């Protein structure tokens, strides 16, 4: 079971491509479990999380938070 990943500053650790996919799918990374070393979120993790919460994915993507 993948760990819940937060970096030292409270944000999840994620590779940029995973961030991008999450952005596109409107997923919050905090809701994604990372399977990489140190609980890092990979692209597959975002995909898996998206499939698990399929309805959410139907929602329009939220605006990027500055």
């Amino acid at each position, binding site marked *: 079971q993948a760990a819940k990943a937060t970096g030292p500053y409270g944000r999840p650790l994620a*590779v940029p491509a995973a961030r991008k996919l999450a952005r596109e799918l409107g997923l919050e990374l905090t809701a994604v479990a990372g399977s990489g070393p140190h609980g890092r979120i990979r692209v597959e993790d975002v995909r898996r999380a998206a499939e698990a919460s399929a309805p959410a994915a139907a929602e329009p993507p939220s605006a990027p938070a500055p």
Partner: protein
Amino acid sequence: TQNLTMVQAINQALEQALENDERVLLFGEDVGKMGGVFRASDGLQGRFGEARVFDTPLAESGIVGFAVGIALAGFRPVAEVQFAGFLYPALDQILSHVGRYRHRTRGRYSLPLVVRAPYGGGVHTPEQHADSPEGLLAHTPGVKVVIPSNPERAKGLLLAAVADPDPVFFLEAIKLYRSVRAAVPTSPYTHPLGKARVVREGGAATLLCYGGMVEVCEKAAEVAQAEGVALEVLDLETLVPLDTEAVLASVRKTGRAVVVYEAMRTGGFGAEVAARIAEEAIDSLQAPVLRVAGWDSPYPPFSSIEHHYRPNAKRVLEAVETLLRF
């Protein structure tokens, strides 16, 4: 403390270095009677005599090679090259020797020398007087590169450079020489080489900069602050050895980085900073690592348009906006 410009702070550092260590010698073109074209050595020949503060012939390779020999004899030469763009004739000495001496002799000899040179643009100097060659020096094994951004730091870093057991290139932004005054402690003090300095804390993005670009980034940060965006400004100060930990810590915190430098963009030292972030902090990045730098051209000698070459706060803020919108 005294209220000093950067060039005055440097002058004071040189004076105290000469005073506190008999091994320190100061030389270069016009550093003696004239006190340097920017007056960095003003009054020093008068005070310490021609044996310790002197003019050399006009030959930069000769000056740096001469400094190497002087350092080998146990002195601590502080050479001035009149403008950083005139370090080029000395690059052979620097690349072939200054950076290799300790390595080649397996530690038998070290070269505790300092080469100071004014660098950078912004003040309508003639051609080649506005170059920023720190990237060339930073890619030279065995030499340290230090670039202060204000009077107080300049003094402490220069005194540290003189005390350092290895060769240090100390570049001074011409733009900052007289444009700011700040409180500088009167007695000698040092700031350690190899440490970056958080100029301003913030969480939205990190601006990574040094020398003449620090005030540009501070200005950008002030403007952003007024709009409610808190930018962190990190002054690298020592490019070699780079304080990678400080860079990474800040970028991991903010997740966004803009590297700002005034040298030509391609191959500049900012590329190294960006590469280190991409190498070691990728999973914290919320956005690309952007660079705001000089364009891929010589620094233009054309005074009415030269200010379009150097990064300014507006360009930095545009980059920040790109990051925040990403």
